[in-house]
């Protein structure tokens, strides 16, 4: 059995899907090279990223399937802890090219439902992180926020903060992936980052942190205390980066 591998970029994945249609050896799986767990059962073929070919696949999805489908697979692509995401996207698109723009009505087909479920999961985290990002004012008048999300959501949350906090410089640092979104009051971009040395917060910053913690602790009603509900809504894995929880 054949397994294609790609470099982990979205364009790389689309190139692999392009090749799957034009090469003789048809893949049963498409996996990312990094973290690959090789198996004796598969023959691995590496597909080099080709922007032109990926663009063709991109256009074909837009024309022959739908914009929604493109949006769906982009979300699944960002769920980078989903080991089989390449294969899931490949299977979904194959069905899409067969059925056309009505693909998302086929909810009882596992290939479709799987994609929609993952998308839902990613969107839920995007919505959560719009709330859970915590900035601190550090040197250079920059607002810095560390996050460790389950999915690679920086490209989906950066536009939100660029609009909302448009007059302040900010950095959102995805510590789990060593990526950072930077914003300079005009544009944002995502760069690879090792922000090991973040300036220590000063007294002014501590003042607002203390006020926020005081507020947070004051609004809880002890007669209604419900820890299990609390943890369900505010999962413990996010606590590390929440000012009020430290």
């Amino acid at each position, binding site marked *: 059995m054949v397994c294609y591998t790609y470099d982990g970029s979205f364009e790389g994945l689309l190139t692999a899907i392009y090749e799957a249609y034009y090469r003789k050896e048809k893949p049963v799986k498409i996996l990312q090279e990094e973290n690959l767990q090789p198996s004796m059962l598969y023959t691995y073929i590496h597909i080099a990223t080709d922007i032109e070919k990926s663009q063709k696949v991109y256009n074909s999805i837009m024309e022959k399937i739908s914009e929604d489908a493109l949006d769906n697979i982009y979300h699944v692509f960002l769920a980078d802890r989903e080991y089989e995401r390449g294969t899931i996207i490949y299977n979904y698109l194959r069905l899409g090219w067969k059925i056309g723009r*009505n693909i998302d009505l086929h909810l009882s087909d596992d290939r479709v439902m799987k994609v929609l479920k993952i998308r839902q999961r990613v969107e839920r985290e995007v919505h959560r992180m719009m*709330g859970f990002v915590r900035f601190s004012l550090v040197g250079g008048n920059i607002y810095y926020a560390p996050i460790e999300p389950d999915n690679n959501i920086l490209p989906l949350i950066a536009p939100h903060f660029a609009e909302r906090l448009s007059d302040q410089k900010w950095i959102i640092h995805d510590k789990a992936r060593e990526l950072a979104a930077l914003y300079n009051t005009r544009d944002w971009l995502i760069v690879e980052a090792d922000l090991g040395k973040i300036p220590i917060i000063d007294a002014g910053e501590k003042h607002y942190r203390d006020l926020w913690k005081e507020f947070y602790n*004051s609004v809880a009603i002890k007669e209604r205390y419900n820890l299990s509900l609390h943890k369900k809504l505010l999962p413990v894995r996010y606590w590390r980066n929440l000012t009020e929880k430290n």
Partner: protein
Amino acid sequence: MDLIRKLHILADSAKYDVSCVSSGSSRENTPGGIGSTFSGGICHTFTTDGRCISLLKILLSNACTYDCAYCINRISNDIPRATFTPEEIVDLTINFYRRNYIEGLFLSSAVLKNPDYTMELILKTIKLLRIENRFNGYIHIKVIPGADSRLIEEAGMYADRMSVNIELPSNAGLKMLAPQKSKEAILGPMGYIRNKILENRDDIQRAKKPVYFAPAGQSTQLIVGATSDNDINILKLSEALYKQYNLKRVFYSAYVPVSNHPALPKLTKPPLLREHRLYQADWLLRFYGFRANELLTNEHPNLNPILDPKCDWAIRNLHHFPVEINKCSYNMLLRVPGIGVKSAKRIIDARKVSTLDFEDLKKLGVVLKRAQYFITCKGKYYPGIKMNEDFIKGNIVADGLKTLLKTKNISYGDYEQVSIFDLLQGNKSDLGSCVNFNNTISIGVDIWKYVYDSLTSGRESIKKQLKPLLS
């Protein structure tokens, strides 16, 4: 007094207002401004009691001149008092907002000196935010009952949402517990805001540079369990508020004992389950096409503690069921227990390209555990299901009871101990007002009456289902 102490006092006093919603408005950021709103609302964190914190919810002041019995800020209560200056509130809001702690501000206040004086301070605060600081985040303000309508009108130009709390669901309750407030003082401003919003809707279509009046609408809060009002009174009131006053939301707040006024019930815990059932019923009114008088009648004036209101309605109306999933209308799908708005829409979509069976429904997110009794797929019942009233009721009541017994945070009305033994003996006269179960959960008497009635109704299959749960 330092700011941190003030914040403690004025957040603590504001916490009994349950609303912390930041939805319904889509204000965009302006050049050089700060902030925007997100139409679906964003929760920024959650309290240890599991409520969303979205807004900086504080009182401007808790130094109240009124003496409402249910309220922690009543003048006769011996608590520390504090008052913010508008500048302090603006500084907190902007700095919290820049750190993404909050979606905006929810400003309420006790009646400081008089309603107009208080309302003027609130107005000054939000004008400072919107005009001087170009703040475009969410602002929810409480309208102080009795304040001049000019002040209310001006405030509506800067706020996203406005609310007037009704608090007590009936006039009698209001008279007894809040003698300084009248129904007119509450409903007056509510009607005024409604008319302003309607007028504004016409105006903004014509205006070149529209000024919105409270674009996220108005809401209110009802306290549950402080008076003897039945659920039917509460739900009918909500229904009327949605229909006649175009309210966006009615919030229900389980009464938390903050006073030992002789007219108030002696609760040890807030009636959270009752609050939960009211919210479920409220959703049925707003999104599922139910009317209040379908859910409750004068013979059944209170929501069923064991079953959610839709299940309860369904087993009282079995003649509507079963429905065929592949044919039934959207409105009827919404009435099936275990099918929500999302799964109903998915069914309608998926039905266009294939015929659905039970396996498919599971994938679409239908809760078959509840829906199985009320549906057919391709003309067939779910395997093992009998379309017989006893069978359905017995199973559903037993399921409801199992869920309740698993929940740790149950409290429903008053407390008095009764033994399970009496219940199993069928000794109705010994039923007190509450049963303590395994020393961990206390359940109000209504539940046990219901179980008792089911046990003694002479229907064997119901008995068979329930007995093992209670032994």
